[in-house]
């Protein structure tokens, strides 16, 4: 009886469908969900846009060793180094990154830069909303990636007004 056989097959298939209908959903309701993340959820190990860390004194950890750039398979990190002076101390060592750009047109979020960094300066944050209508906006500057000053140093704002004027996003990068 081929007809009965077909009906049984359909019933079996649909039973799975109906069973799943009453299970709790695992799809996130992004971007219509609640909270600052608009419903997005991810694992702690998620590799999002980069954060350049500071040490406990608020100095930048990056010493412009170029190892991340050397290790980057898509060659998207651009650094210009400069020397710290007594008047202007930016990092803890002799050298700091005067310019540190990551080109998110090319970054593949592989984490090799993080692996390479001898000072744990570069890390992956959880930022993922990088889409834009303007590709040049995908080249992130150091100011856009720097971690905020540690709380005990009194500065919580990620960006000051000048930096926002110069193109930094006005909202702190999520998860940083």
């Amino acid at each position: 009886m081929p007809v009965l056989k077909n009906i049984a097959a359909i019933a079996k298939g649909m039973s799975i469908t109906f069973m799943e209908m009453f299970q709790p959903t695992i799809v996130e309701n992004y971007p219509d969900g609640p909270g600052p993340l608009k419903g997005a959820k991810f694992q702690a190990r998620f590799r999002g846009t980069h954060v350049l860390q500071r040490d406990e004194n608020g100095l930048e950890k990056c010493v412009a060793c170029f190892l991340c750039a050397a290790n980057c398979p898509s060659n998207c990190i651009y650094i210009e180094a400069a020397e710290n002076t007594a008047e202007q101390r930016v990092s803890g060592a002799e050298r700091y990154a005067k310019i540190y750009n990551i080109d998110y047109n090319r970054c593949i979020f592989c984490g090799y830069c993080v692996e390479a960094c001898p000072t744990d300066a570069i890390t992956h944050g959880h930022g993922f909303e990088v889409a834009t209508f303007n590709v040049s906006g995908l080249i992130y500057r150091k100011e856009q990636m720097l971690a905020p000053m540690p709380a005990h140093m009194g500065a919580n704002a990620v960006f000051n007004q000048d930096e926002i004027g110069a193109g930094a996003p006005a909202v702190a990068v999520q998860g940083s």
Partner: protein
Amino acid sequence: MPDVNITVDGKKVAAPAGTLLIEACKNAGIEVPSFCYYPNLSLQGACRMCLVKVEKMPKLQTACTTVISEGMIVATNSDEIRQARKSMIEFLLGNHPLDCPVCDAGGECELQDMAFSYGAAESKYMEPKNHKEEQQWSPVVYFDRPRCILCYRCVRVCGEGMDVWALGVQNRGVSSIIAPNQDDHLECEECGMCIDICPVGALTSGAYRYKTRPWEMNHVGTTCTHCADGCKTTLGVRRADTGMEIVRGDNRDKSGINGDFLCIKGRYAFDFAHHKERLTQPLIRKDGRLTPSTWEEAFEVIGSRLTEVRDCDGGQAIGVLGSTRTTNEENYLLQKFARVVLQTNNIDHHRTADFPAFVSALTERPEAAASMRDVYNAPAILLIGNDPTEQHPLLAWQIRNNVRLHRARLYVINSQPIKLRRQATSFLQIPTGAEAQLSSFLAGQDSAIDALLSGPTSRDEWISLREKLRSEPGLVIIFGSEIRGSDVVSLVKSASGIHDVKFICLGDYANSRGAADMGVYPDLLPGYQRLADPGKFHEEWGGVPRAVGFTLPEMIESATAGKLKAWYVVGANPVGRLALDPFAFSQSFVVVQDMFLTETAVIADVVLPAANAYEKSGTFTNTCGDLQLVKKAGEVTGTKSDFEIIVRIAGSMGYDVRKLVPFGRGMTADMGQSRGAQSGEVDRHGVWLEASGLELKMSPFDPMAILDEIQRLLPGYAVSRMDLLAGNAQHTALPAGKAGALHDPKLIVPADNNLFSSGTLGRYSRTLNSVIENRHKKPEELEVAAD
């Protein structure tokens, strides 16, 4: 010497007797690690990295101090040896900061490489490491003591190689430290050899420290733009807001005539390129003031004014001054432009040596011009005049090392007690200005001896010196600008009996010899061909003006009398360097192309911002006649090479540039490489090429096209293009037959540069200036005795 046979790791190796084991292994392709061993320096045996096992010897041996002997059986790679090496590294790293991420040596550090190969980066010490702040020893030398591995290479290269002896060792054993000669700072020649030779990042350079990392730069092998010795230098360049910035100069690959030698100028004095006073826009005098303007307007003004003067007053109303720092191609092009487009032979340059007399003295045996390599290998050298330590650092290095390593005999005759007397077999001092009598005396005129006898040297000693020199086969005679005109001829004659004698005539600037070879003279064409007999140039260029032109003093005279209506000055600063009266320029139409607003440029009517020799391609000829490639390394937006400027001026005068530059039919097609394809220059050229109806890919701005013509017309320059492009120095031959001329000796004005000055260029180098300032503060320097 007969070969000695040894076995290394089962491989049969043969090498001449007396070879060090480490060298024999290297020649057989077996690497033995080493820190303190450095070829051509004395042996140290300090680091124990080169330990190998030699059969029948009880303990491991240092390969760098062991001389090979017949039948030796050597193992370089057993477990025992690897363990020994690992332990040595562990010792070295015991107090080493391992701050590789910020260390300048990181990426090209020999210790880093060894730690990678043998491990041992973890320290077994519990104690904190001994730290010592970094010290600045001089404007260019910094010392980071914890990173030093006490290999003593710096001490040895400064003493043995440079004969400066400014570095030494303090204390003994584990507390040894490298120390400068003046308590807390250095007073030395600032050559930077110690920094270069340091296997780790202990000695770092003030010019380069913390700027970038070795692998982040592009490396361009080119030729130094300062003195006339022509060191090959590898420039490290990186991108900057205004084009490409040079951040480092060295020659670690030892590929040039200079090996790894560079003096302070070649190593650090490239910073003039980014001096804040660098011109980046053409200036035109409007209402009495130099006003920034566009290239188009500048070319239009120059084109119409020069055409006007040429057509109304004739070519003899235009004076052209060439440069001793522009490439051969530019010099050739400039004199061709003067003769063919401006129709004048009024072309001259700042002469610092009498090359025309040198050529005319040697027309019988043009092969007798020595190369820079000959100075290192000659069995005997006679040096008359000049002070190479100050004015020709590479030459002095070659002489010193020839004496030290090959036991060459050096005879120095000078009016001053120059430093090279320390290496001399005999040093004879003569009264200032007696060089002319000296060459007559050497040529056999005994009556000239009286003028030489004021010093402690007796008549007999002079005679015996002359006899000794005559029996020195292979002698290389080097003379400075003190010997000119007919003295050159008598000096050459004096040596006619010596077997295989060779000569070097010392000029002062990077391309002094090139300017002379390329015919930047009012009476000589390229290759010192006399104007009276233009030969193939006449046919090739379709006519050469016949009347002999003005020399520079004659041009000045004519301009002062109001007869010279226009000046075209390329890369020269006659007002500043030759102390000429600016009045001579004030009544004419003056075009100056230079990097800075020099004393000459401020009185010009049009100033064009030119690129320097590190920013263009072409060739240089050093004072010995060694031809070398110049490659584009840096770039400053807004400037143009002198080559391009000359072609554009010719174009704006309505001349067919195809006749000026025979592009597109020689050996090369310029695809933009020579002009910095990466920097958009090709596009900028494209606009003009398109507008002038020229094909884009083969352009008249291609110096190689002129090199084709030079090689075709000057037999001496017909060297292998392949070798030249590979970056090797090629010795050019002097012209034979009727060439050269005896000029008025007064036309030669020595540049009188010393180790820390370099004409107008040196004034704009921050490094050179800071070294000079630093010295003025210090008391008189004491000389250290050679060992």
